[in-house]
């Protein structure tokens, strides 16, 4: 299968007066349907790479391809569409909208795309919540759920638009080991059932060692790239 994400000679420099180069000629590509982890010391540039892949950030130089299309030259609106349709994000601080219920949060990426969710989509959202084991709390406000529940909601939300890619930045960063295992199992399950490509930044070896591939970033470079 082809590459869903490709980074070519990515450099990232922060600051204009005092230049702080964070990424050096990063070349990375990820095959469709794989489960990948990115590891590395904090400050090594992992999140920067992930954010560039997710079109949230722009490289100073280099090319980014998502699903074969070059994104680093797209307009803000085009990028928003790419993010909405092709990419699901899971962050460490789950980032749900606290004013909305779990179910509503899951539906939001769909509503961004389409304004109104038909019955089938609501049903699908409920199924996703079921998949992550949250059917019982689907009508709870986001801020009335535990960290693990919120993170699982975020996973369901990342999946609602059937994205090809899930980008996760330390998704289990502040969860206990039991929740971490549960989250990993859910992600792996989805990867195998739906063929979604996962790229997961993690400090958690239990997740990294179960990935198909580990990319270690060190001082803004790909230091090691190992496969199982």
């Amino acid at each position, binding site marked *: 299968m082809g590459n869903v994400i490709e980074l070519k000679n990515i450099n990232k420099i922060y600051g204009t007066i005092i230049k702080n180069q964070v990424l050096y000629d990063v070349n990375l590509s990820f095959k469709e349907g794989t489960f990948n982890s990115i590891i590395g010391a904090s400050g090594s540039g992992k999140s920067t790479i992930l*954010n560039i892949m*997710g079109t949230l950030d722009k490289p100073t130089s280099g090319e980014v391809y998502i699903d074969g299309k070059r994104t680093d030259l797209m307009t803000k*609106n085009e990028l928003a569409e790419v993010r909405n349709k092709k990419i699901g994000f899971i962050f460490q601080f789950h980032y749900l*909208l*606290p004013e909305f219920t779990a179910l509503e949060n899951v539906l939001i990426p769909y*509503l*961004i795309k389409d304004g109104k969710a038909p019955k089938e989509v609501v049903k699908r959202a409920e199924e996703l919540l079921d998949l992550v084991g949250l059917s019982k709390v689907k009508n709870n406000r986001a801020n009335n759920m535990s960290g693990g529940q919120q993170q699982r909601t975020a996973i369901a939300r990342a999946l609602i638009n059937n994205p090809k890619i899930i980008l996760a930045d330390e998704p289990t960063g502040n969860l206990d080991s039991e929740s971490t295992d549960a989250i990993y199992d859910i992600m792996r399950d989805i990867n195998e059932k739906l063929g979604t490509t996962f790229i997961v930044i993690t400090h958690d070896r239990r997740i990294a060692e179960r990935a198909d591939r580990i990319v270690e970033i060190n001082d803004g470079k790909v230091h090691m790239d190992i496969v199982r």
Partner: protein
Amino acid sequence: MRLPFKIANRFLWSNKGQTLLIALGIAIGVAVQIFIGSLITGLQDSLINKTVGNSPQIKITSDDKYFDLDSTSLDEIKSIDTNITSVSYALDIPALISKDSKNNSVLLRGLDLDRADKIYNIKSRIIDGKPFWGDRVNIGKDLAKELNVAVGDKINIRTSDGKLKEFLIEGIYDFKVANLNKSWILINISTLQEFTKQNKISSIEIKTKDIFLADKVADNIKNAIDKNLKVINWKEENEELLSGLKGQSTSSIMIQVFVLIAVVLGIASVLAITVLQKSKQIGILKAMGIKDRQASYIFLFQGLILGILGGILGSALGLGLLYSFSKFAVNPDGTPVVEVSIKYSFIAFSAFVAILSAGAASLIPAIKSSKLNPIEVIKNG
């Protein structure tokens, strides 16, 4: 559009206290505006009404003091301008009245009752007796008091050129203006002409539908009639009053503008704070692919919803204020101190302006939110 509205709504209702507070702020602004606006309009209306409401707004006179009335010309004058509602004519003769040893200088006003009534509302002003007819006259209530006379009494009237006659008091009127109540004696014009051997008249009196157009109507009349006649309108005669009223209007508008500015600033600052409060949410939404325009609609809708809420609440509050003011701020006789004018169009306008300015106030936060970069939020937690 649907999603931004839904989000705006949820944002507002998830923070009920803040929302209610700002809606109340807008409402008070609107209420103050409605109250002050209505009060001042009411004040001005009643002042103008008192001044010119029951008097002609345009008068045609002659330099020669008296001029001939060709009776057909009254209808001609009426047809000059559609704004003219009624035309009357009068003969004014200064005179002295004596009762016992007192002498009072008065103005004999010879009128045609039916025509004059359309201008002065004479019939409804009579507080005792009946309107004048034949050689029976009406006098004002202040004069009656001074002379200590009542309906049915007789009074002697002497013109300046020495003609003297006794008249019967048929009725006593109250024009609510002491000066008039003291000096005017109303009498049938033909009776007066006969008494004074004066066949001419001294003025033609005209009432207009819209009193503020009196000057325009007067110009039209001037162009249509004999050049020897003078046409004057109430505005010329009451320039001072008018400029006073204009100043009052200006200051009322100023007050309203400042209230509006306060409302706008209030909304803008609260919404600017909510952009900060909700920047995390906006960042998340943007990461999930909401477009900048949609994101800015969220705040636009918040502004509009607040405006509508405040507008409705404020209209109700303003109406309530006006109602209780007219109910409780009353003279001893139960009539309101100020006859406030409740104009629904003005209330609707105030509410509409509030909504509009709330919308305008939300523009800054809307623009701010559209510029927000999701990466900042994602990075900084």
